[in-house]
């Protein structure tokens, strides 16, 4: 690992839950208004990541009063208070930009029920990774 990567690694946030495109998340971000600081949340579907070490960003989309709203957040920004995963989406692509063109029934995303994270660690919705009580059953692995 070279010095540049080391420098970047020191800045990465490890306290955020794992999530990916298709998931419904609530992003809590700190906002400064004059002197005061408050926390605002934005809830929507993650429609894609732009992965590049510390510059990684992700896009969250929601429909607000019939108008599509998208926000791009830097994943490792210190302004992100926390991220809560509301739903795991069952999607087959990394970028869900097609959601911009569809609405109503077409804009639904199937929910992934028993989602198994990396190394067989079950990641419950709204929480941090937790080791399964019993060894992760093979059958729980969703077959695609």
């Amino acid at each position, binding site marked *: 690992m070279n*010095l540049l990567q080391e420098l970047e690694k020191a800045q990465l946030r490890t306290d955020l839950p794992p999530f990916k495109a298709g998931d419904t998340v609530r992003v809590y971000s700190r906002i400064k208004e004059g002197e005061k600081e408050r926390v605002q949340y934005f809830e929507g579907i993650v429609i894609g990541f732009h992965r590049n070490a510390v510059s990684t960003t992700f896009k969250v989309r929601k429909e607000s009063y019939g108008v599509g709203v998208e926000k791009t957040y830097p994943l490792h920004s210190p302004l992100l208070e926390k991220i809560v995963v509301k739903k795991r989406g069952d999607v087959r692509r990394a970028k869900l930009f097609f959601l911009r063109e569809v609405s109503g029934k077409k804009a639904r995303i199937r929910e992934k029920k028993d989602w198994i994270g990396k190394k067989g660690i079950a990641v419950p919705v709204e929480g941090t990774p937790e080791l399964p009580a019993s060894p992760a059953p093979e059958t729980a692995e969703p077959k695609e």
Partner: protein
Amino acid sequence: MKSGIIGKKLGMTQVFDTDGKAIPVTVIEAGPCIVVQRKTVQNDGYDAVQLGYGPKKAHRAGKPMIGHFRKAGKGAFGVLREVKVNTDSPLDAGAEVHVDIFKEGDVVDVTGDSKGRGFTGVIKRWNFKGGRATHGSMFHRAPGSIGASAWPSRVIKNMKMAGHYGDERVTTLNLKVVKVQPEKNLLLVRGAVPGARNSFVFVRHAVKKGN
């Protein structure tokens, strides 16, 4: 005290400031440099130090250079640069210069050799507009007229034409130092600096601003 240091450009990344804003930075591995020669008013007519950076095998250096390096007694170096200093500067031959000559918030100038682009047309080299691509246009990326005919019957000097572009000495002025990490010899400056990754750059306190 105004001074400078030689380093290696490692590449660009971003850091977050105290307000949470992402700042684009160039990471430079700066120093440590060795003072190879101290120039003085009495000897040389001006005060300066010659800095060496990047160890070099002694048998790769020519004999005259070996003699020159021996005066400092700290080995041979691949890159040498000169920095002007004050008459009362404590730096003498053999002294080390570290990145801690800079601190956060300083304004610096960074000099390097820009990326070589080879033989380049006028659009890339001089930002000419070029012509239309379609609709029967027969004028695409050519330079167009380069002058009149019978008079002056020559092309005037410094006409902007195609040719070699890049790989020349470029100085970027007034870059802000975002962070200094003396333990790793790292210097983070805001924005881009000339040159490719792993190329040598020279960093000095800004000559036109601050400090």
